[in-house]
Every structure is written in C-alpha cells, then in structure tokens.
C-alpha cells in the first residue's frame, strides 16, 4: 500500500516521464520529418513539467507581493521555462522551415524516400 501511495503521490513525475519517453519514441521511430518534429516538441514540453511541479508550493499563491499573503509559489522555474519555451519555439520553427526546404529540394519528407533519392543523386 505504501508503495502505491508513493506512486500516486508522484503522479506529476509519472506524467512527465511518460510524455518524455513517448516524445523520444516518436523522434526515433517515425520516418516522417514533421512527425519527428512533433515528437521532439512533445519531448521538450515534458521537461517543462519537471521544472514546474517543484515550483508549486501547496497553499502558495502567485508570486506577486501583497499584504494578504505570506506563502508564494517559486517564480524562478516559471521564468526558466518561459525562456525554454522561447528556445523551443525557435527550434521547431527552424526545424519546420528546414522541412519545407527539404520538401522543395527532394520532393518528399519521408526519410527513407529521401535517402533513396540521395543515392541516385
């Protein structure tokens, strides 16, 4: 029972780990370049959860100073993740732009088809 309780108490980490592995699996297993990027995005996003959950303090409010509250959540993880999100957007935008260019140059976004064409070239 104690072990089960342990599992349930850390549900946030289980979700994060599941999303992370799912994302990584998609990146490795799919040959479609857009799907790969979707997986990559999922993988990155799961990491945000790892940061955000320890930042929440139970009973704490948004970290804006006020006389009514004494307990605040930790704002630092949110700031870090805001930065990480921006990095993520830039990465995905660049990745998609590359896929568009690859589609124009090779006429396909399936990795195996492209590698076949590459041998001919």
């Amino acid at each position, binding site marked *: 029972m104690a072990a089960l309780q342990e599992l349930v108490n850390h549900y946030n980490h289980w979700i994060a780990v599941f999303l992370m592995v799912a994302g990584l699996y998609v990146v490795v297993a799919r040959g479609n370049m857009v799907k790969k990027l979707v997986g990559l995005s999922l*993988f990155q996003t799961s990491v945000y959860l790892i940061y955000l959950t320890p930042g929440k303090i139970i009973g704490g409010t948004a970290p804006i100073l006020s006389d009514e509250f004494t307990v605040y959540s930790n704002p630092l993880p949110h700031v870090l993740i805001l930065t990480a999100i921006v990095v993520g957007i830039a990465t995905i935008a*660049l990745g998609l732009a590359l896929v568009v260019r690859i589609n124009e140059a090779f006429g396909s976004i399936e990795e195996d088809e492209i590698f076949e064409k590459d041998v001919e070239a």
Partner: protein
Amino acid sequence: MIVDNLPALQVIVPLLGAILCVLVRRGWLAWFIALVVSWIVPLIAVALILQVLDGGVISYAMGGWAPPVGIEYRVDLLSAFVLLLISMVGAVMLPYANLSVESEISDGKRAWFYALYLLCMTGMLGISITGDAFNAFVFLEVSSLSTYAMIALGKDRRALLAAYQYLIMGTIGATFYVIAIGILYTMTGTLNMVDMSGRLGDVATVRPLFAALAFLTVGISLKFALFPLHSWLPNAYAYAPTFATAFLASTATKAAVYLILRFFFSVYGVALVFGIHPISEMLIALSLMAMFGASIVAVYQDNIKRMLAYSSVAQIGYITLGFGLANVPGLTGGVVHLANHAVTKGALFLAVGGIVYRMGAAHLDDFKGIGKKMPLTMAGFTIAGLSIIGVPGTAGFISKWYLAIAALEHGWGWLVMLLVLSSLISVIYIGRVVEVAYFREPEGKVMNATEMPLSMLIPAWVMILATIYFGIETSWTAGIASQIATDLLAGVQ
C-alpha cells in the same frame, strides 16, 4: 569603467554586431562589421586572461543582482583560455570569409550568414563565460540554432538534410541538459555553478545527482559528438559552407567540451564523478573507440571535407581520453588539445576551402596533382596534416605527449601503444591526400587551378604557422593548460 564591464562586453559586442549585420543588409558591409567585431572580441579576451593571471577569478554580477541570486559571469583561467581560443580563431578566419562566402552563398543571404556567424560566436563565448547553469543552456541553444541555419545555407541540397539531422540530435542533447539542470535545481535549489558545487555535499540522497550526471554527460556529448553520438557531425561538416565548416570545426565542439569540463570538475568534483561509478573507464573506452573507429572510417572517405570531419570525431576522442585519465598530465593533454586541435583543424579546413574555392568541390579527384598548381595551399595542408598525425615539432605532438605521460603515470603501457597505433591510421588518411596531390599528374579542371587569393592564403598560413609555433613554444598553451588541470583537479573555485 570599460575594464569593469569587460566580461559583459565579451558577449555583447558580437551580439550587437549580429544586429547591425541584420540592419545593414549588404553582404560586404556585414562582412566588414563581422571583421571589426571579430578583431575587438579577442582584445577583450586577452585583457580578461591577463586580469585572471594577475588577480585571480573575475566575478561579474549581471544587472547588478549579486550571485548566487542573479546571473553571474565568472571568468577563471579555464574560461579565459576557451574565450581566447574561440575569439582568436574567429579573428584569424574572418578575413578569409569574404571571398569564400561570396562564392558559396547568394547575395541576399550573405548579411544573414554573417549575423548567424556572430550569433554563433555570441553563444559560444556566452557558454564559456557564464557561471549560471541555465544561462549556459540558453547560450548553448543560441549557438546551436545559428549553427543549424549556417549549415543549411550550404550549396548542396544534402546540407538541408544534414542541418535537419543535426537539429534533431542537437535538440535532444540540449533537452537532456535541461533535464539534468532541472534535477540539480530541485536537489540544490540553486543554478549558480559555484553555489551548486558547494551545496552538492549537503544533498542526502545522491542517486538523483547521478541521474543528472548521466543526462548531462549524454546531452553534452551529443553536442560535441563523442563517438557513438557523432552521427550528425560528418554530414554537417561536409555540406556546410566551407567557412562555416572551418569555424565550427575549430570552435563549436570546444565550447561544449568546456561545459562538460566545468560540470565534471568544478560542479561535481573529481571524487563524485570518478570515485563511485566507472565513468573514467567508460570515457577511456569510448575515446579509444572514437580514435580508432572514426579514423578507420576517415580512411575510406573520398570527400575530403567529410574525411576531415571523421578525423575531428577521432580527435575529440583524444580530448575526452585526457579527461578520462583524470590526472594532471592527462587533463593538461585534453585541455591543450582543445587549442591544438582547433588550430590544426582550422588550418586544414582553410586549406581545403581554398581548393573548394578554385575547384568547386573537395573530392579526392580534385586533388590530382594539385601540389604543382597550388603549392602553398598544399604545403600548408601537409604541415597541418603532420600535426594531426602528431609529428614532433607540431602542435599535435604536444597533446599526445601529455596523454602518453598520463597513461604511463597510471602504468598503462598498452594505452601508449594504442595512441601510437591510432596516429598511424591518421598517417594513412592524410597520406592518401598528399600522395594524390603530389605524385599524380594534374588533369581536367586541375590544369587551370591557380593559388588561392591572398586574402584567403594569409589566414590559412597564419593558422598553419600557429600549428608549428604551438609545437615549439608551449608556454601559452601547455603552460596554462597544466595550471588549469592542477586547479580543476584540486577543485579550486
């Protein structure tokens, strides 16, 4: 006032340069801005290293927020060494860029290319100077994202594929790094590296720390292409614009290597990293696989840029071998090889870049008899090649010498034999090119080839002379490297 703000200026100057490049939109003007910036940046780096040698560690509080709360820029000898290395390489190579980039990148994109180059520079300098673990991630991505875009600007359509593959691998690496920082932050409650290393001792359960270490090692290893994680590198270097290849081969992996050094030796400390799990043995095994595997693959490459890229993977093996040995000469060898490999590989790629400029490609067939048509370029290639092999009197020899001493200090004679053996493989791949260049008769396109223009020849030869200079006079490289190694192993903050 300027002296106080040097650590910030080190990063801001190239950033401002990048913005100016975007705003002016003219290729030659952007090149000129990049040139000026590339010559200012090493001056700052020299001033910083002199300050560090004189008065110890410099700490700079970004935005006036005192560390460990604010972001700290922290320059110790290792940082200053890497800063100087990266900025010097940029300063020497930039005059070369104008013609080389003009021949490979269309007019409208040239200003953007220089902006990307300067952003990449910003990122790498930032990684080396920051004392904040998360800030290092941001700079890592600034440099990586600009690198992907630079590679994609290559002429060959396969450059796009290479950039895409690098983007996937690089992002996985960076995300692993973020996971590691997340765990470390949860365990210690701080992001400042010095503060973090102080608090690691108080952590009750060490298992998460090792999970973080594993993520960290794999993530950063992806970025600097340690052997089984190197698959992105050969294509990226082979199809990128030649100037980008030369610059990245000399610097990009070095900044990532710096980061792993920082975490292994400054944050975790030798005892925690090497004392409990067999990380040292693993690093040595992977390094040996890199030295042999990548070198053997390099022998079979006909595209010379690709061959040199595989050689880079092998050379990274030497650097990590030094870390794995984890004693003073080993670490000295690893750190000094950062500089020596940067100079040597830079020289090789600049020489090959000259041939690409004249011939349009760097296939082995393009080298037939080129020793007669481009004597200076090929002579330079040969000298730098000798440095890759590790012939005494060149920079490469110094690194291997220290590594051999380190191996002997452990009593591992077999490792010295393997070092010599791996050097023999590099004799084969360099020798192949030299043989074709000097002992075949020129034919076809080669008949019309002439020496590369002076603005390209001079930077290439500066690099080549540097490989000889650092092979003879070692106080700036090996002298500082051994001091860094001593400090790192002693855990000096």
